[in-house]
């Protein structure tokens, strides 16, 4: 388990950047300038802060959350990997550029990854290839219905 420490040096500006701009990012030619104006700082400062928060890992991106199944095909896949092979199988899975999330979870099904590709055929090819190369079964768990999706996450600072 990777040990992750919360960022220690977040100031008020960082917090507002993290919390207040998860939705409705300005669709104007100079969006960072618009954000800066709301925060009472200048555009370069906003860009520099976001760079820093990105480098530190607090921000994964400034970008869209795309509704699944609108573009391409995707699925969630799960594997029950013998613990001593977990690292090796995770590496093998990561080598596919169609894999965008890959986590271990505490369960008999201990490796979980999201596959996104141009179409379903490619998804099936990848899962077949992983099964052949590992000798392990891949559970294919495509989304059938979406009831709720991350619309931004209210951060509570302690």
């Amino acid at each position: 388990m990777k040990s992750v420490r919360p960022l220690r040096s977040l100031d008020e500006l960082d917090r507002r950047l993290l919390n207040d701009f998860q939705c409705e990012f300005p669709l104007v030619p100079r969006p960072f300038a618009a954000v800066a104006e709301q925060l009472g700082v200048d555009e370069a400062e906003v860009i520099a802060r976001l760079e820093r928060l990105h480098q530190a890992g607090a921000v994964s991106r400034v970008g869209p959350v795309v509704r699944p199944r609108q573009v391409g095909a995707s699925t969630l896949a799960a594997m029950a990997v013998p613990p001593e092979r977990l690292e090796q199988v995770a590496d093998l899975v990561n080598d596919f550029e169609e894999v965008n999330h890959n986590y271990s979870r505490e369960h008999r099904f201990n490796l979980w990854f999201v596959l996104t590709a141009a179409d379903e055929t490619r998804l099936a090819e990848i899962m077949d290839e992983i099964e052949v190369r590992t000798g392990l079964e891949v559970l294919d768990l495509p989304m059938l219905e979406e009831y709720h999706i991350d619309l931004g996450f209210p951060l509570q600072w302690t």
Partner: protein
Amino acid sequence: MTFDRQSPGLDALDGALIRAVQQGLPLVARPYAAIAEELALTEAEVIARLSRLIEAGTIKRLGVVVRHQELGYRANAMVVWALPEERVDELGRCIGRFPYVTLSYRRPPRLPDWPYNLFTMIHGRDREAVLTQIEHIRYSCDLVGCDFDVLFSGRRFKQRGAFYGTPIGDLSKLPRGGPAPLGRLSLGGGIA
């Protein structure tokens, strides 16, 4: 199993645009102009198309995507529920209303190994908080008696925005989504 490959309202340029922004906007003063240049569009066209994609719900939100773990939300659990088929819709919506739940999806069970048909993602500062939240959900949504399992996350081997592969047809010369160039936000929370 069939998937909606491309929504009826989306044209090929919309697809290319989504591929171009999915890993994050470049952190430059005029990010939409930079994207426009990649796609041989104008800045105004990029902005107009993004607005339309947001309005249509294809893009659920545009903004800062944070990584919860790094911000002190150390525990996140995938909580899976084995529900009677006729109750999945109702319960999926009920669970999705809690603020600490970021996803609630129906997926097919895979018997005999995997009986669960509702997947939810629950975040908290620590495991105890997550377990307390689950108990709250079980009572609030009348789930007591339904089989469920809690899968806490362990190591993260990879996390970034979705990659939809190379553009198709006459868009084949457009830049592809893949690992992003330096200076662009390239790691992100995907969903499937």
